[in-house]
């Protein structure tokens, strides 16, 4: 079930088969613990002889049983968590053993193709302005996060409006990476910027296209609605 979810999308099992993985795990775990307890009960003489100490009174043996019971509960929980992590982390490895560095990043990070597009379209010594660190740009607006993927480019955090674009070489065009209830809040930059080049990146096809416009105007042009891309600042 977990492998199936990894290969499709988060919540795939619940959406298609209406089985909640975590709750299902609890049912299996409960069954397993029951089997262990019944087994110990059946072989109680052997259990006492081999594991418990042999000179205990009733109270001491009771304490020993409680230690064991909670230890088994802990082990069963651990086994499930470790198995889950193991399957989650290795399913992709076995199905895509020869994946490239970019592909591996993409499996784990849906924004990675966009970051890759930026690095392919900007020189390493460029200065890039990113959106403000607020909803819906909590990821693409986080300078500490972006600097890792765009390294060694310099990152400058932008404001919602009134930015000084003369300090930078490039400005990101981002729809937004977090959900907001009001559609009006999406899309940045929100002001007109004169541009040498505007490139739009399609997050679905992972392809980019250069626009012929020399001005980024978010209100006048429908190209920039829900768009991802890059503005090379400058020009007339």
């Amino acid at each position, binding site marked *: 079930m977990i492998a199936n979810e990894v290969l499709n999308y988060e919540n795939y099992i619940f959406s298609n088969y209406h089985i909640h993985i975590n709750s299902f795990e609890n049912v299996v775990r409960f069954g397993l613990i029951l089997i262990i307890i019944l087994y110990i009960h059946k072989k109680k003489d052997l259990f006492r002889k081999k594991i418990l100490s042999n000179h205990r009174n009733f109270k*001491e043996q009771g304490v020993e049983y409680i230690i064991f019971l909670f230890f088994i509960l802990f082990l069963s*929980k651990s086994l499930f968590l*470790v198995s889950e992590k193991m399957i989650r982390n290795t399913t992709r490895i076995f199905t895509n053993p020869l994946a490239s560095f970019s592909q591996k990043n993409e499996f784990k990070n849906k924004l990675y193709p966009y970051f890759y597009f930026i690095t392919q379209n900007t020189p390493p010594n460029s200065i890039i302005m990113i959106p403000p660190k607020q909803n819906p740009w909590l990821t693409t607006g986080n300078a500490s996060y972006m600097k890792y993927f765009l390294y060694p480019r310099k990152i400058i955090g932008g404001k919602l409006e009134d930015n000084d674009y003369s300090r930078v070489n490039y400005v990101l065009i981002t729809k937004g990476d977090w959900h907001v209830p009001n559609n009006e809040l999406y899309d940045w930059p929100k002001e007109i910027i004169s541009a040498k080049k505007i490139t739009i990146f399609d997050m679905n096809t992972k392809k980019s296209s250069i626009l012929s416009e020399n001005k980024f105007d978010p209100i006048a042009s429908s190209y920039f609605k829900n768009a991802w891309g890059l503005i090379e600042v400058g020009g007339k």
Partner: protein
Amino acid sequence: MSIFLLIIIHLAGYLLMSSIDNKLSFLMKLSVGYLVSISLTTLFLFILNIVGIQYSQINTLLVISFLSLLSLLIISLKGVRLVRPNYNRIKMNLLEKRTFFIIAALALVTIIASAYWPITDWDSIVLYDYRAKSFANTGNMSEAISTGYFFGYPLLTSLAQMMIYQFGGLGPGIIHSFFYIHFLIIIYSYFSKKIKRKWILISTLFIAIIPDLFIHAQMTYTNLPFTIYFVTAYIFLEKWLENKSISNLLIFSILVGSSIWTRSTEPYWVAYLILIFIYSIIKKKYLHFAIFYLVVSIFRKPWLIFREISSGNPIGNVATQALSSVSIAFSERIIRKLPLISEYFYRYILEPRIFITISFIFSIIYVFNSSKEKSKFLPLLLLILLSYSITLAGIFVFSSSVDYWKEIGGSATRMTMFLPILEIIFIIKVIFYKKNSNLNE
């Protein structure tokens, strides 16, 4: 090339441990050697960088070579012969074979996952691995300092990951997988002297499947190395208390120092400081306390001084820090905050490991009711209780000084991931500990 780096780190570590204590088993020297080698190499690289020597592949090689040559010199001066690995085949029964297979599979998965996956975890992206990338690329620390967050944590993991980048590796997580594997070997070696043979591998498996440990072996956070240094330090504290050997005290102190060189935000090392202090007072062995404090300071002070000079924030000494923290915590009404702090403590520290904590509490009852050798369990019990106290005090201070304290409970769970390991060791010792005559049953 990364494999070459890992080989020379292991070799240097083995020589270092042989020079300090040649009586240790081959496996123990190799595994503890790996921990010590990583810690000393990164510390040397950091100190050299402060005096103007750049981070580079050749300088990393020189530092590792220097440590190896120094160890060889000590070994030859001491006139000790290096212990060869014991190739005598251990006869395993079916249960032991199966257990060994599961442990090996877990270890293999961590190595494969670390080598395959790029860094994707948040803290590593914004801090640990970013610093590693920047150091490897620029050869100095100025770029990483200028982009913020730099002084939050010491540099052990960042510099270790930098070494992987310097040697052309794409998966710096491999360093962390080896931490996990060597820790399991250390635990195996530790239990092999403490409990019956048939339970050694099973007990090691109990530790191997602790979810936090296994998950962090595939991440590049500081929590796993910190936990491993901290718990391994306890193992050497116990060894030292048993045989009073200065070399064990030295290894113990190096491991505590290394834990501070990994994470210095939470002062858990104070628990060890208190234990050693009490021991020194009772036994009137003040020199032991001095050795411990001196060695720990070698690891602790360079980062503190560097941070103080570079950031311009005076850090002060331990006593001043403790007093100022306590004054912050007590400046607010404790009673008013107590329910919130209790809830936080339960939710993030106790609840994620509730079963093991209950089992641990009953183990304490059992020891004090039934065991004739209570003193054998006392240092570990004190260490766990002191660590819980430090955690609680830390939450108090944190809740008074940081507004968003309730939002980052996950970090509190991560920073205390050494507690369930110590508790499991305690429980295993209580359950499986038998008199020496039965050890080989």
